[in-house]
């Protein structure tokens, strides 16, 4: 029997939990050459900024053990072109689209929200809080509950009530739960975890940093244990908040770990660089894993690893009840 893979991101239903991660699927058209984007849980856009951005100089990439560093610097066409060309292309095709936004001040995030508030085709708004706050010496919003909350409160007040606002958090903090709580208190309907922790590599031939930008974001399987831990901690503290688990998901098993930790959806980033079909494969593998373990619904697996050891798994109890009735 097929598993019911539907999931809810706040009140928005997704056909399945496997989404692309922000900034890892360009405009959508690139992946559409490989498969039908309707098969995604949702496509998350790159983080759209007010002005067009040329991004950082190259080299922007360095491979690290089971991971990679990137310093793209939010290259993108800016909100005008996004609204003119990128979003309509997705909207016309009815592709579930989580629009990610990035800004350098509360005002910029708010302006982006305003521009997107009436745009058709915004399934949810993801607020990338891993951007430097230009009004606080470039300190990243996600590093500090207060400024993160300010952004979320403003964006939430501007966006239409029926579009969930999702705060995207980074693991480079002393207490991820505190930042998560601040965002939820400020009105975030859901949370995405994790953005890239900051890393660095040095080229031992040139004796210089491998990236032109010196430091960059670490992604890929190396960070999966950090993502699982963040999702676990936040789900334990805020069990009612929908979580999108992101970070190092390469297989259905990786996605399953995040779901058992408490994520109701997962984002796939670096895996797309290796395998353009990664989302479809991961979704299939996840369904097979659920099926093999007797799950009838994905929803029954969300956060299941939190149940006290030894307690019977709900999904199996349901099975028994049905077979004895």
């Amino acid at each position: 029997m097929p598993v019911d893979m539907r999931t809810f991101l706040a009140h928005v239903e997704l056909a399945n939990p496997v989404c692309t991660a922000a900034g890892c699927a360009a405009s959508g058209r690139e992946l559409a050459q490989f498969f039908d984007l309707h098969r995604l849980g949702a496509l998350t856009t790159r983080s759209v900024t007010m002005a067009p951005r040329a991004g950082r100089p190259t080299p922007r990439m360095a491979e690290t053990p089971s991971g990679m560093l990137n310093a793209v610097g939010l290259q993108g066409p800016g909100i005008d072109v996004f609204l003119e060309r990128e979003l309509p292309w997705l909207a016309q095709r009815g592709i579930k689209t989580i629009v990610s936004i990035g800004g350098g001040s509360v005002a910029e995030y708010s302006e982006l929200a305003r521009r997107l508030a009436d745009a058709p085709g915004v399934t949810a708004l993801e607020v990338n809080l891993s951007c430097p706050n230009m009004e606080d010496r470039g300190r990243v919003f996600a590093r500090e509950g207060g400024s993160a909350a300010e952004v979320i409160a403003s964006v939430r007040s501007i966006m239409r009530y029926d579009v969930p606002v999702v705060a995207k958090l980074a693991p480079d903090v002393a207490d991820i739960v505190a930042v998560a709580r601040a965002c939820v208190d400020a009105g975030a309907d859901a949370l995405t975890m994790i953005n890239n922790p900051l890393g660095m590599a040095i080229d031992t031939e040139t004796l210089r940093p491998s990236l032109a930008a010196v430091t960059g974001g670490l992604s890929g399987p190396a960070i999966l244990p950090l993502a699982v831990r963040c999702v676990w901690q936040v789900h334990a503290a805020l069990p009612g908040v929908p979580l999108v688990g992101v970070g190092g998901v390469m297989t259905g098993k990786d996605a399953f770990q995040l779901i058992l930790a408490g994520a109701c959806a997962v984002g796939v980033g670096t895996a797309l660089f290796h395998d353009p079909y990664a989302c479809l494969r991961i979704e299939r593998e996840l369904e097979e894993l659920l099926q093999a373990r007797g799950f009838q619904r994905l929803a029954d697996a969300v956060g299941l690893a939190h149940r006290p050891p030894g307690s019977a798994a709900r999904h199996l109890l349901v099975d028994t009840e049905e077979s004895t009735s």
Partner: protein
Amino acid sequence: MQVTGTVLTTRRVDAYHALTVVAPGIAERHRPGHFVSVAVGGAHTSMVTRRALTVHDVKADYGGTVELVFTVRGPGTAWLAERRARDTLDLVGPLGRPFPLPRDPVHCVLVGSEYGSAVLFPLADKLLERGCRVDFVLGAAGADRVFGAMRARRMAETTTLTTEDGSLGLRGRVTDALPSVIADTRADAVYACGPMESLRAVTAVAMEFDIPVQVAVEESMACGIGVCMTCVLPVIGDDGATRMVRACAEGPVFRGERVRFEDVGTIPFDALGAPGGGARHAG
């Protein structure tokens, strides 16, 4: 498309390794200038990014094969060099924008440096099919790194070889030989592949002769399919504006005079969306 190909043969060609891989879908759709990306390291590897390689040769055998020619640079290419016949390789391709072909039977000079020569042979085939005249200029640091000299001699009207150490052909670089080849062959167009510095110089020569030049560039790539934005370089668009474009999606083939070679590795201040200046021109 993604193909799990089987290695048919492996061979050494001087300093290079060559792998012939059965990959029907890719072979069939391949056009000169396309590249493929190869997963390296096998199951449970710590290497998460694919390696981009151009296709040297396409054959119809076994439903379609592609030949990859490469030099060992780091751990990924070292792993590739250890592949043996019957091993499988995970390929994605064909990728990128291929070489545009002339409509008319014009005279073309094909300039290759190091393994960059490899991509020129399927191109030469196609040009010859269309009745073009083809001349080769192939160069490298030393004789063992000049790729495809024999094959070039068989295909082309003339083949000029250059090595920096003088161990084969003329001592010097491809661009030292290029002007006289263009002049002698009354070339109408230049195609080039090789390191950025070589492409810059080839472009300068072609511009001097006022003939079009198509270059296939190489930039460090994480995805090869246009989604990661790591492979960008500054290229001037039809509207005269400079944009940071993706070598994998908008390239790897560009019109040489459109590539701002001096600014590769930087964000030129006048690029669309550059910090400070460029952003204002946009929207």
